[in-house]
């Protein structure tokens, strides 16, 4: 009994000592990461986390004399889980700002939560214009879909001389449906015609029926603005069915998985994206590419999703510094005021929550993404 009592006393002393030591060190600032570590677009979330880890070797996670810590939650690529993860980061972890999610549909859900709790959230690659519309606390580090789809449509009509198009989009994702609509609007405004408009759903693996419809209508180009797995499977099946038309995609297919699953079938597929390592000019970009190569091998292409998540980290860190405070409200104001901040993908200025960024065109050549050109807004 006496021993037990002694034990308890010693434990209490140790715990209180620990508390003293802890309060002596500066309290860390917590940034939430609401990422797709599993589910439909796991490759984006995992790439984003890689990107944040690499860039924090260049720009140390420290601001206002306090260390910065990350609290990473997996949102399973699911809208509801993303909203819940945001609440949890704000309520439990008391985060200053949230990085992620990577996809627009989830951001529409998470944005509502953050707007209500007045905590800034910044999506690295959430391109749908609705995500930031009318919101003070929702941001993005990328261009918006009307811009990317309009430029894609113009390119198809003018440069590829396509007069008819087919669109196959994923009806369960706001991002894909909106891209399809923007593409159709611009393509038809220019004088082209969308002859086949079909849909699929997240997780679908069979596209034979939709593709047979496309085959019958025989368009000049096929626009597939879907995420990487769905897009790769659709292209493989299109080639199996004997469709020879050029295929055009959007930023969503910029992953290793698209090339690996697609294999020979995706050769020649073109798409619009945010950045390419060949466009790395600044010291920061070059250092990032170097560290990425050192970690993932010389042959590996630097992942665009990771680079944009790294941008978000830099934007948030810079905003906390300029705000001189960890009050989420002030940090949100500082993010909105971001101007010509040097980041991994060049430099970034934020207006009404949106980043002003150029569009990069790429094409699959010999199983790799090949840089074609860059178009400025």
């Amino acid at each position, binding site marked *: 009994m006496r021993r037990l009592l002694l034990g308890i006393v010693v434990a209490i002393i140790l715990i209180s000592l620990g508390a003293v030591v802890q309060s002596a060190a500066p309290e860390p600032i917590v940034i939430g990461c609401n990422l797709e570590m599993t*589910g439909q677009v796991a490759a984006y979330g995992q790439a984003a986390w890689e990107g944040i880890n690499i860039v924090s070797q260049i720009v140390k996670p420290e601001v206002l004399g306090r260390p910065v810590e990350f609290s990473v939650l997996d949102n399973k690529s699911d809208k509801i889980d993303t909203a819940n993860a945001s609440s949890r980061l704000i309520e439990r972890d008391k985060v200053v700002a949230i990085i992620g999610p990577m996809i627009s549909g989830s951001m529409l859900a998470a944005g509502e939560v953050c707007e209500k709790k007045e905590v800034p959230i910044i999506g690295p690659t959430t391109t749908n214009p609705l995500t930031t519309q009318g919101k003070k606390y929702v941001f993005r580090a990328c261009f918006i879909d009307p811009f990317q789809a309009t430029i894609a449509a113009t390119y198809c009509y003018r440069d590829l001389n396509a007069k008819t198009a087919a669109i196959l989009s994923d009806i369960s994702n706001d991002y894909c449906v909106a891209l399809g609509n923007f593409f159709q609007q611009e393509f038809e405004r220019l004088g082209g015609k969308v002859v086949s408009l*079909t*849909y699929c*759903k997240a997780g679908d693996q*069979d596209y*034979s*029926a939709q593709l*047979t419809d496309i085959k*019958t209508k025989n368009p000049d180009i096929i626009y597939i603005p879907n995420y990487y797995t769905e897009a790769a499977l659709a292209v493989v099946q299109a080639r199996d069915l004997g469709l020879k038309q050029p295929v055009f995609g959007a930023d969503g297919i910029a992953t290793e998985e698209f090339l*690996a699953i697609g294999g020979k079938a995706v050769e020649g597929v073109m798409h619009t994206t945010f950045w390419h390592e060949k466009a790395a000019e600044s010291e920061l970009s070059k250092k990032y590419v170097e560290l990425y190569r050192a970690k993932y091998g010389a042959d590996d292409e630097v992942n665009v999703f990771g680079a944009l998540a790294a941008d978000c980290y830099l934007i948030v860190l810079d905003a906390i510094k300029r705000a001189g405070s960890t009050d989420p409200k002030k940090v949100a104001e500082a993010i909105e005021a971001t101007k010509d901040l040097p980041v991994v993908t060049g430099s970034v200025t934020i207006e009404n929550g949106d980043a002003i960024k150029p569009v990069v065109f790429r094409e699959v050549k010999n199983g790799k993404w090949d840089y074609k050109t860059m178009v400025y807004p």
Partner: protein
Amino acid sequence: MSLETFIQQLANGISLGSLYALIAIGYTMVYGILRLINFAHSDIFMVGAYFAFFLIAVFKLPWLVSAILAIVLTACVGMTIDRIAYRPVRNAPRISALITAVGVSFFLENLGLVTVGARPKPFQRPDLMARVIRIGPAAISGVSIWVPILSIGLVAILLYVIYRTKLGMAMRSVATDIDTTRLMGVNVDTVISYTFAIGSALAAAGGIMWACKYPQINPLMGIYPGWKAFTAAVIGGIGNITGAMIGGFVIGLIEIMAVAAFPALSGYRDGMIFGLLLVFLLVRPTGILGETLKEKV
């Protein structure tokens, strides 16, 4: 719709339907014998595909050897699941077994996410399966020709095993009355174990064929094919092997033809299939070939 398009869509439908049929047979067999809807079936399907993937990609074994080994390994996994998860609740109310099956399903999915990761992996298709064959106006991939042959072959073997062998007799006996079967001196646990081995082997064969047709695998790949196959089994009359086969083809054809007829509604093809399941459950719960059962899960 032109005749050419119709023929191509028909080929698409048969090809997809035969895959559903292959998975549905396993579902229905386990149900027919144990009155258990093995929800883990669709995840065993995934496990089979992963075994084949690793045997090909890591151990560099020839394709056919990998496929056969993967099927054998998956059969062992099926027996292990039965031993660990289902046998302890054998005498509990049926709902306990059903919940256990759901639990096993979640366990396998999450085990997959933790061990192999959530990012999809490319599945190497052998030339035999990947080659595109043109019959008249229709382009059909090799796998679409092999799967119906394989499915029908497996059903024939399965029916032979169930109706012509001693093991099959024991299985049918277990289906009728477990306790009486035990009194006859049959080792019921062994018989059930074999049932799971056969069911899992069928799931693995389905998984490998699926991966050959849609060359991508991930830990959640079994969910949708599993639900569709389950729907096929119910529509065909759950517990009836020929019915599952027919159900699979019906589902595949309806799914493709619905999209062919209404391309603008193609995003809702799953909705149409599950709607059909609801209609069947309301109007003819015993399915096309099913007999009326006294008890249902």
